[in-house]
């Protein structure tokens, strides 16, 4: 089996080299028909790469299911009793397999791209060559530096070392593919952008072609990030969902720049502006996705989530340098082609709001990048490492995020070119009044209402930030609702339909705009979820039979604790009865699991999710008497993060739906008894 997989990888590399080399010659000598035909073979070779890489991935998965421990990768990341879905997930659970998976996804994107080449044959030919170049890099890695089909030396082992316990969770079967689909997907807009730059592509068609790719990719990355966050919350057992770990930061950076691009690209489409900027944003998104991969795989930055240290870091460093040099070379050569067609007319306009939006997204990216690299910089400058953790990021990123929220509220109310202050005031007044009302409600209601009610900003700076987040989120929410309402009212007045039907029709007429608003609404929900973090509570206690712990409005009573033994794992768990207002609410069972194959332990918290707050119970371990040590957290509003994420995905999907054609209204002229004869020149 290993030989088949290995050969498939080698074949894929050869096909990629052919697709790149011949494709490049076909572009250079495009006037000769002979090269035109060869260019077609390069495209087909690119399509075939997918088949070869798919075969290699299939072989690896089959090897995992067949418990073929002669393959070192399978031995290190699987074991006989590992449940089926996790055996499948072995494909991306380790360094070598995940690089193969990356190659597979890239080949998949290339496959689709090359099949759709008729949209614009020349542009697709350029994009195909760029994509093939990136593919060569990843296939070289899996062929020479991190081969997933390497054989284990010595006698055949009876069982494998098993999958990392933290990865044995259902979301881990979905999270990495989503994240990788996002990372890898940004290669496609980059390939088109570089192709358009090299060929001095006229007009903005390449932007329109890549828009869907970018949105789909952004959607996958969003989904991947939130799934990862949910996994951290549900599995790691520290009660949080985002730890500002370098690996988390690595996924956030391309997402932030990609979001900036999705906004600024509208300026290029509608006004022919920011062409240079967008070119750099596309490149930065792609580059940061690779940089993130470099960070997690080189061992240069320490992280609990990173893959094992290996030599492939230098491969990534060279690739980053080469891709940067290539981009800068073509940009320097052809940047004159990217001149703006229009000028900015007013500071109070949609254009300038996009500029500030981009600035804030880039500042956030820069802050995250700076924080991620600062330990290394500090080590180089002063010889000792420092930790850059959550306190740094929270202090630096939260104010910028609040500004971004403000712009999210104001931006959609601004017209292209110029907006009068009067119109802005008119549209902004009621959303602002509503948002202030909500803020005061949250601030002055009694704390006994629980959750985020009674949020007094004078208690702590984090309360102040939370309150501002709620104010601005409400503002964004109300502006989104007012935009739907105003548009719906116009349609309703014209057609006599009900308001809801009018809003649906409105959305269908411009799915991109209103889908975008739905995404903004999702962001609002996520932000409200984040704002609850300031009011998190936690308590830890050793709990024997009948012991009680009070936290928030809950009373926890330890009913029992016991152990269990399964083929893959042993577990210790406690039975905790949870009472609220004297009534038994439910019984929760936090666990500690010991995985036999890997000889590693992990916690499995039990979470009671609610719209107001989560009760999150962790089995921390046992004391000397064998009694469980229980840690309980009360985390307000967390569920809104996950709901918001779903709304964001829904909005992205909505924005991808083609627009319905607007009904054409023809005004019938009044009957004229004797029409005047037409005269030439009228």
């Amino acid at each position, binding site marked *: 089996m290993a030989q088949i997989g290995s050969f498939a990888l080698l074949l894929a590399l050869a096909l990629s080299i052919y697709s790149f080399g011949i494709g490049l010659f076909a572009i250079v000598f495009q006037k000769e028909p002979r090269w035109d035909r060869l260019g077609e073979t390069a495209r087909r070779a690119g399509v075939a790469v997918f088949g070869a890489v798919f075969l290699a991935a299939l072989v690896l998965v089959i090897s995992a299911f067949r418990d073929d421990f002669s393959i070192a990768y399978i031995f290190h990341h699987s074991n006989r009793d590992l449940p089926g879905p996790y055996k499948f997930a072995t494909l991306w659970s380790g360094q070598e397999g995940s690089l193969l998976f990356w190659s597979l996804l890239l080949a998949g994107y290339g496959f689709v791209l090359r099949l759709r080449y008729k949209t614009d044959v020349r542009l697709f030919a350029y994009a195909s060559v760029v994509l093939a170049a990136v593919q060569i890099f990843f296939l070289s890695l899996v062929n020479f530096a991190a081969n997933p089909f390497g054989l284990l030396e010595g006698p055949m082992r009876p069982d494998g070392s098993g999958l990392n316990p933290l990865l044995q969770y259902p979301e881990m079967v979905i999270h990495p593919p989503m994240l990788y689909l996002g990372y890898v997907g940004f290669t496609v807009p980059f390939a088109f952008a570089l192709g358009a730059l090299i060929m001095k592509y006229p007009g903005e068609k390449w932007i329109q072609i890549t828009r869907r790719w970018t949105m789909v990719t952004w959607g996958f990355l969003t989904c991947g990030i939130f799934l990862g966050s949910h996994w951290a919350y549900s599995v790691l057992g*520290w009660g949080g969902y985002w730890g500002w770990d370098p690996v988390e930061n690595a996924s956030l950076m391309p997402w932030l720049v990609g979001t900036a691009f999705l906004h600024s690209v509208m300026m290029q489409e509608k006004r022919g502006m920011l062409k240079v900027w967008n070119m750099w944003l596309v490149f930065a998104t792609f580059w940061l996705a690779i940089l993130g991969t470099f960070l997690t795989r080189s061992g240069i930055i320490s992280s609990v989530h990173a893959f094992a240290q290996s030599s492939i870091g230098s491969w990534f460093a060279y690739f980053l340098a080469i891709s940067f040099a290539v981009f800068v070379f073509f940009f320097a050569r052809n940047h004159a082609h990217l001149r703006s067609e229009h000028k900015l007319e007013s500071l109070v306009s949609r254009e300038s709001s996009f500029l500030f939006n981009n600035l804030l997204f880039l500042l956030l990216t*820069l802050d995250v990048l700076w924080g991620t690299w600062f330990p290394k910089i500090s080590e180089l400058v002063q010889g000792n490492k420092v930790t850059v953790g959550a306190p*740094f990021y929270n202090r630096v990123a939260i104010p910028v995020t609040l500004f971004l929220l403000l712009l999210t509220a104001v931006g959609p109310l601004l017209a292209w070119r110029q907006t009068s202050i009067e119109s802005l005031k008119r549209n902004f007044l009621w959303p602002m009044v509503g948002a202030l009302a909500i803020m005061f409600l949250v601030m002055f209601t009694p704390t006994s209402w629980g959750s985020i009610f009674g949020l007094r900003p004078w208690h702590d700076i984090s309360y102040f930030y939370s309150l501002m987040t709620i104010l601005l989120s409400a503002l964004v929410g109300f502006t989104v609702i007012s935009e739907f309402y105003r548009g719906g009212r116009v349609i309703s007045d014209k057609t006599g339909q009900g308001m809801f039907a009018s809003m649906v029709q409105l959305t269908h007429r411009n799915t991109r705009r209103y889908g975008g608003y739905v995404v903004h609404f999702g962001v609002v929900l996520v932000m409200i979820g984040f704002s609850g973090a300031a009011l998190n509570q936690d308590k830890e206690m050793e709990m024997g039979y009948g012991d009680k712990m009070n936290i928030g409005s809950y009373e926890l009573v330890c009913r029992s604790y016991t152990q269990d033994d399964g083929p893959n794992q042993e577990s210790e768990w406690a039975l905790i009865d949870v009472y609220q207002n004297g009534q038994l609410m439910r019984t929760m069972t936090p666990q500690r699991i010991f995985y036999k194959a890997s000889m590693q332990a992990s916690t499995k918290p039990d979470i009671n999710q609610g719209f107001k707050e989560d009760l999150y119970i962790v089995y921390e371990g046992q004391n000397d008497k064998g009694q469980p040590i229980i840690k309980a957290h009360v985390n307000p509003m967390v569920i809104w993060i996950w709901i918001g994420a779903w709304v964001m995905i829904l909005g992205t999907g909505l924005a991808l739906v083609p627009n319905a054609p607007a009904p054409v209204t023809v005004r019938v002229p009044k009957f004229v008894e004797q029409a005047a004869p037409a005269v030439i020149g009228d």
Partner: protein
Amino acid sequence: MMLNSKFVLRRAFQCALLVPLIVVLLGAGEPDARFKAIGHRLVCICGACGELLLECNHVGCTYSDRMRSELMDGITRGDNDSLIEQAFVQKYGPTVLAAPTTSGFDRTAWVFPFVAFVFGVIGVVMVVRAWKNRPTAVPAGGVPRIANSELDKFREQAREETDL
């Protein structure tokens, strides 16, 4: 004197914006939160979890319990925050602090984002002004430029008719 309703509304709006600021400025921290506050400024240095000290739940962690009790001892002794943090740095090294300090080279970690923000805003404002002042290319036919008021009218009309 008759008060202009617009004026009243504007003043009320400004007042509403000021209230939260005043509330924050008048506020003061609570002393009993010191354990939590300092505990969230330190990290567990076991090397396996990388968590903030009070969030470490790493199974079998040999450091976090000890560090937590040292923190509690410091607070019970009446040491101030800075002294407690210094004691931790001396014992466990600078990586025990969850964020860079505000002295020496570490200060650049804090200064850089602020400088980037200031330069970024100045940069965007300059770009906007430069673009605004850029001369508009006059069409060969000499078509007159549409006045802003007229443009507003057309925009309103387009919005009324399509609202898209």
